[in-house]
């Protein structure tokens, strides 16, 4: 089991924010049936609670757990994400109603995904090379109260016109260091009820690095910590806006 992140006071814990964790590995041509066999031990354990499994393509599978954690595996990627489970409830006396799962803080969800990824990697990664680890924060905010860094970013986008923009649909990929980059996607408009922000942090291994399940564990822990640090830096506005 991978060690959990310490609970930190991240701004992401004050908004609807969910993580995704993914690994890009060297291609391994393995049909879905073989992947299911590799994961048999794990899926049997998970199946104590309701799970949904699907062959999406001949070499791509997806498992959805009732907790909201879902895993997508293909010949190159292992991606673990989270979506709030949506259930329909009906008691026979009134119309059915949609019930969304209990809300959870971002830094509580990230260790959950890492544990799931660890379980998957222990069965799927014997000796492979990794080219990329990605940690995504998908955030939905009320537009009238964004964190200072997001407000600063929005104002920065409007600087050529010397006023805050009326609407933004943007995607900026920035190189943070030699081995790190982040895709910043933002969608916002003045009369909208949601400000959607997607921060997709990635650590690149060029050339790809050989890993086993154990060494991948260490890389994933480091990546999650670094990603969280960058997300906090972005939310705080600790970037060079030229002020």
């Amino acid at each position: 089991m991978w060690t959990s992140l310490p609970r930190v006071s991240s701004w992401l814990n004050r908004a609807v924010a969910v993580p995704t964790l993914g690994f890009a590995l060297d291609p391994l041509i393995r049909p879905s049936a073989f992947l299911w066999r590799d994961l048999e031990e794990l899926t049997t354990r998970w199946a104590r609670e309701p799970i949904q499994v699907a062959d999406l393509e001949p070499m791509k599978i997806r498992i959805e757990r009732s907790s909201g954690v879902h895993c997508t595996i293909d010949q190159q990627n292992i991606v673990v994400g989270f979506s709030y489970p949506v259930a329909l409830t009906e008691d026979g006396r009134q119309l059915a109603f949609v019930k969304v799962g209990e809300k959870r803080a971002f830094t509580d969800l990230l260790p959950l995904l890492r544990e799931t990824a660890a379980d998957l990697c222990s069965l799927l990664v014997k000796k492979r090379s990794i080219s990329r680890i990605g940690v995504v924060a998908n955030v939905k905010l009320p537009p009238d109260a964004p964190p200072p860094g997001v407000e600063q970013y929005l104002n920065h986008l409007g600087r050529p016109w010397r006023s805050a923009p009326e609407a933004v649909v943007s995607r900026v990929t920035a190189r943070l260091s030699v081995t790190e980059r982040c895709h910043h996607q933002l969608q916002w408009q003045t009369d909208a009820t949601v400000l959607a922000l997607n921060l997709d942090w990635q650590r690149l291994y060029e050339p790809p690095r050989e890993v086993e399940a154990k060494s991948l564990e260490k890389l994933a822990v480091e990546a999650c910590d670094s990603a969280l640090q960058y997300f906090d830096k972005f939310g705080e506005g600790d970037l060079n806006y030229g002020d």
Partner: protein
Amino acid sequence: METSAFIGGGSVLADAPSARDRDQTGSRSDVFVRLEQMANAAASSTDAVSTPRPTTGGARPVDPLAAGRRIASMTPVAERDALYAEQRRLALKKVNESLTPAEDRRLKIVRWNIDRIEDAEFGPALDLLDKRANLVDQVATSVQAFLAEVQKRRRW
């Protein structure tokens, strides 16, 4: 494209979740199936791992205010205390000396965090109060309009 195959807007992350926790009875009315389709549509829009896209309409968007309040209200007491202590320390330093740009940024984000936590605690009650105040205003406007109408008719 390199990013489209992996993290960052590719098909992997854009998948919408299907409805989970299905009932185990096996018999489901048409209404229930239609509602489930509606739930799927809602889930695809509220799915927080879907890539932001231009709004196409139709699906119900997530209410970030209510959901964010729910999450902020779960902040542990120790974390709240740490935020208040940090705010106090930085605010005092701002008054007595001056803050470095990094400390100033930190003070802003700490205040934002505290605002979110306090909004989660008091926001719903204040919203209700605001709604009621607006209602009273509307009633007052209607009564005034009614009185004006009565006076106008009296003159006839």
